[in-house]
């Protein structure tokens, strides 16, 4: 009886552990300069892509920005997630971490939230774009807010499976490559051309259409970009992200057996 009590964590103790891991992770990212360089590079790239589109079309609309960003993020987010666990394993600090009184799920959530905060910093750096649009005209602020919500959901999913692949890999490069491939599978399975090719290859199965409907991130993300916030799209991101986080904790637990 006392044994079971001693292992029970109060919500406060649980989130305190998550917070400590997240704070350490964020500090390490800024100490090593990775966070600063990645955020500046991505902000410059994303902003220049938007400005190019903006000068070509001349409309106060962020849809082209939201449409183009997933491809860019399919590279950037694996670069953020690749180090989450592969680095701990390579440097052997994982033994230090998991001999502290913390559950794997606390560590997984802590690192995940830290990565999400870094991604949030990047998104915050793109906010001058809607501010500029507001100064120049009257953009659809609801659609912009919904688009940003879609970007948050998109990043949450990519960082979740990136963390899982980092936990499965022994090396950051392997984690990056596999996360990028899986990320592109999530994105490209929603592209019309990829869907047509796959449907043509397997006409009996309609594989391309099946993958677009059931796997692709572009379908639920597209709803956010169009300004439609539906429960099904939210559930897609929340359930898949939750599944990957849970699987990461399981993988880390299994590694110690």
């Amino acid at each position, binding site marked *: 009886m006392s*044994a079971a009590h*001693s*292992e029970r*964590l109060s919500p406060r*103790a649980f989130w*305190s*552990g998550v917070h*400590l891991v997240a704070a*350490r992770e964020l*500090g*390490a990212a800024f*100490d*090593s300069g990775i966070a600063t360089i990645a955020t500046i590079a991505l902000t410059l790239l994303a902003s220049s892509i938007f400005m190019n589109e903006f000068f070509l079309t001349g409309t106060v609309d962020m849809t082209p920005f939201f449409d183009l960003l997933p491809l860019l993020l399919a590279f950037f987010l694996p670069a953020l997630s690749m180090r989450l666990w592969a680095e701990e394993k390579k*440097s*052997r*600090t994982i*033994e*230090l971490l*998991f*001999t*502290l*009184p*913390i*559950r794997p799920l606390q560590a997984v959530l802590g690192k995940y939230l830290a990565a999400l905060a870094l991604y949030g910093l990047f998104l915050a750096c793109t906010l001058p774009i809607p501010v500029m649009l507001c100064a120049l005209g009257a953009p659809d602020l609801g659609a912009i807010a919904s688009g940003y919500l879609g970007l948050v959901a998109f990043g949450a999913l990519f960082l979740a499976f990136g963390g899982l692949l980092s936990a499965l890999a022994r090396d950051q490069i392997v984690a990056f490559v596999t996360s990028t491939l899986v990320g592109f599978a999530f994105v490209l399975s929603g592209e019309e051309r990829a869907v047509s090719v796959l449907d043509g290859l397997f006409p009996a199965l309609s594989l391309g259409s099946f993958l677009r409907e059931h796997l692709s991130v572009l379908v639920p993300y597209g709803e956010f970009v169009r300004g439609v916030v539906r429960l099904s799209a939210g559930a897609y991101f929340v359930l898949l992200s939750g599944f990957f986080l849970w699987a990461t904790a399981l993988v880390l637990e299994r590694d*110690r*057996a």
Partner: protein
Amino acid sequence: MISVEHVTKRYGATLAVDDVSFRVERGEVVAFLGPNGAGKSTLLRMLSTWLAADAGVITVAGHDAQREPLGVRRSLGYLPEHNALYETMRVDRFLAFVGRMHGLAGERLAQRTRWVVEACQLEGVLGKKIQHCSKGFRQRVGVAAALIHDPPVVLLDEPTHGLDPLQVALFLEFVRALGKEHAVLFSTHVLSEAVAVADRLLVINRGRILLDSPVAAMHERARAGGRTLEAELLELVRAAQQPAGVGA
């Protein structure tokens, strides 16, 4: 404080720890002695809950390692073999991180930090990043992190590795003092270190405990046989390594 009963661990086809049992009580310093690959680190890793045993029961300060890993971790300070630390963190921030993970805060954290900094002589490197510390200081940072929450049980895996002779002497003196109020289990393959500090020797080879004896009794036995302690232990390990039937 530490109870290991019939513990076994396999890595694939390799039997790393084979039906091992022993106990360590509070106020006792026990040295785990054995050649490389004998199973010392595997046993310490199972005690620290980093590895799970395939069979047997491990209890630390009354907590079952399998069912109550968090209770075990709160009760012990562990210095792993490779002493991997978060390189980019400053020493003071690293100690605060480990202390907070153990639930320390406020004045208690400050008090324990002062104690470990003084005990491990870390005053000069507190503001330095760990990656800029020398091997000796890194080892001391690892020990300080292991002791910051004042655990009743201390596990040290090859703690003198990389230290110079003076640092080794000071460290062994420190372990000796630590053993007055804690249960200390430390692994080494240097007999002189084990004999200098430990109350009891656990000699392990190929995953099996060959000897569990007080150091004084070992001295007595060696003297009675007209041999040095080193020769006595060497003979023990040699006999254990002989294939069955040889010399019979």
